[in-house]
């Protein structure tokens, strides 16, 4: 089994480009050009320069001593939370803004859930002097207020998505409609490994710097360049795709994907797509998604805005179906508790999304010599208000 994208834009049964004809020229333009552009020398140079000098890469691979001792395994954290703007999201937006420039686009649109992708997009647009419009669900605007303020400071226009559950799915719908209405001058910077081909592959490639760095970093500390386990939270799946990328076809490495169970898988308020989803089409991609028997997309729920999505990228659907990855879902409460645990054991306040990944340590058994790498996808600054209200801090 191979986990790379195939020629038609599929991972196994999943992926493709199920888009209305209005988007055909835009998506075809991207499909025809993305591989060529990102392999060009000057693109690579500019991308790597910015990752180093602007984003602050490589991010540390940090050995978490106290966690390792308590859970009796070798636990490493890939510190994406130390990236400029506070999450892995900027790896992708740097790549896509350079690509957009090469394609001659002068207007950028994006969707955002937690606001991390919105901030990362607004940031690179400010860097390049390009107009930026970010769609964000009305509910998310309320629960991630600091990120809304940051986007505005960076000069972006934030537009509220008011349909459906008023979260990430609806913001994505609005961004797609904007792109339909502005097909010539606009590039849509999708924030995860979702959407029509070539987006899932393109975003995964830009995020693959995470596992590329791990290869050298782990070799230095452990004398081998692969871990036993890779663990990441999955909303759309971009931080996870970046963490897994160079190990997808290395079967010595076990892969764990952590989804948000919300108030519990059977509660009707959940975002655990692998457990609750069926094959279908969302945002132009054939993948697993939460839906009614009639094929209406279900409104998801998670306390973390970044995981509050009823689908999952097609790569992850394939990892799940083929059993390459183990999928575990974590309820709100355990994730919130892990926000505190990680803060007080390692001095790292994680994003609520990120905290979901760590919570698997409570139930999953490891051997003392197992090397575990957690993707510490983002920092918790944006979630302070949620933490304050939850723990009455």
């Amino acid at each position, binding site marked *: 089994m191979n986990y790379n994208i195939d020629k038609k834009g599929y991972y196994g049964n999943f992926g493709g480009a*199920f888009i*209305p*004809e209005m988007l*055909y020229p835009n998506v075809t333009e991207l499909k025809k050009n993305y591989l060529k552009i990102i392999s060009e020398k000057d693109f690579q140079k500019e991308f790597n320069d910015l990752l180093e000098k602007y984003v602050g890469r490589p991010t540390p691979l940090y050995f978490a001593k106290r966690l390792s001792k308590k859970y009796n395994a070798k636990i490493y954290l890939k510190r994406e939370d130390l990236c400029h703007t506070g999450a892995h999201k900027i790896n992708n937006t740097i790549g896509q803004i350079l690509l957009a420039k090469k394609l001659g686009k002068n207007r950028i649109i994006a969707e955002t859930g937690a606001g991390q992708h919105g901030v990362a997009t607004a940031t690179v647009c400010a860097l390049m002097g390009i107009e930026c419009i970010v769609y964000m669900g009305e509910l998310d605007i309320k629960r991630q207020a600091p990120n809304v303020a940051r986007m505005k400071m960076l000069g972006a226009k934030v537009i509220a998505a008011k349909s*459906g559950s008023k979260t990430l799915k609806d913001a994505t719908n609005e961004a797609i409609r904007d792109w339909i*209405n502005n097909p010539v001058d606009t590039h849509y910077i999708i924030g995860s490994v979702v959407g029509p081909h070539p987006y899932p592959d393109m975003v995964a490639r830009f995020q693959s710097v995470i596992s590329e760095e791990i290869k050298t970093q782990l070799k230095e500390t452990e004398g081998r360049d692969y871990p036993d386990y890779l663990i990441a939270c999955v909303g759309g799946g971009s931080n996870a795709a970046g963490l897994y990328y160079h190990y997808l076809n290395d079967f010595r490495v076990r892969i764990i994907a952590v989804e948000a169970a919300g108030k519990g898988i059977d509660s009707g308020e959940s975002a655990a797509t692998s457990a609750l989803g069926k094959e279908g089409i969302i945002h132009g991609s054939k993948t697993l998604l939460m839906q009614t028997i*009639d*094929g209406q*997309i279900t409104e998801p729920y998670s306390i973390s805005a970044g995981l509050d999505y009823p689908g999952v990228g097609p790569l992850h659907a394939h990892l799940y179906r083929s059993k390459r990855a183990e999928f575990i879902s974590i309820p709100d409460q355990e994730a919130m508790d892990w926000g505190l645990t990680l803060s007080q054991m390692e001095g790292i306040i994680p994003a609520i999304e990120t905290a979901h990944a760590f919570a698997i340590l409570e139930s999953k058994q490891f051997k003392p010599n197992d090397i575990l790498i957690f993707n510490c996808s983002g920092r918790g600054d944006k979630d302070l208000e949620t933490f304050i209200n939850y723990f009455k801090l």
Partner: protein
Amino acid sequence: MKNRIDGAFKKEKKLLSIYFSAGHPNLNDTSYIIKKLELSKVDMIEIGLPFSDPIADGPTIQKSSSKALKNGMSTEILFKQIENIRKEIKIPLIVMGYLNPIMQYGIKKFCKKCEIVGIDGLIIPDLPVDVYNDEYKFLFEKHGLYNMFLITPQTSPERIRFIDKVSKGFIYMVSSASVTGAKSDFNKKQIDYFSRIKSMKLKTPVIVGFGISNFKTFKTATKYTNGAIIGSAFINYIEKNGIQKINNFIKDILNE
């Protein structure tokens, strides 16, 4: 059996097609609306199978779809409604819906059911032409269904020729780079695009949709095409005036 869509284009006059969301304003209005439309001399009807996330639609159809779903609309109910009314209706009935609900129903079962209840064709905006040709065409043809494709101002001439070649029934010409929604007039760029398409002399009839809202836009657009489709403006009208006065809306469009 011959497809009713072909028959609709045999008439001299410009074809008027109306789109509405099934199950809106009320769940069981579907049959009444269809009957009224035929009585008002509408030539073809597009019945929207509502979807929770209609990415190609503007605010009006988003709202009518979501209202229809709240009213309890489902694929099964739509088939029942159409089956009950079909015997009384002569004009072509087309179902317009997104791919996901159709996939969940089961594409084979869906096509079979369409044939049984008397649906003539489908418009599925997020089903790409190549996927249709590879995976769906055989089934559609087996059940006598036409699948109509869209073209837009951005569609290249080569692709338009390709779509013309594989099309049956008609080509749905989207009037501007936009989601659905009523507009009061066309600009010069749109008119240039309409005449560019007209001058291509496609083998398949062309009808224009998106932004047609009144006598003026209908008249202008159909100078260049075989007909036009009105959606959002019609939905706005029945929301405001109820479904009893549908014939007044149609009269105004046709300026009778």
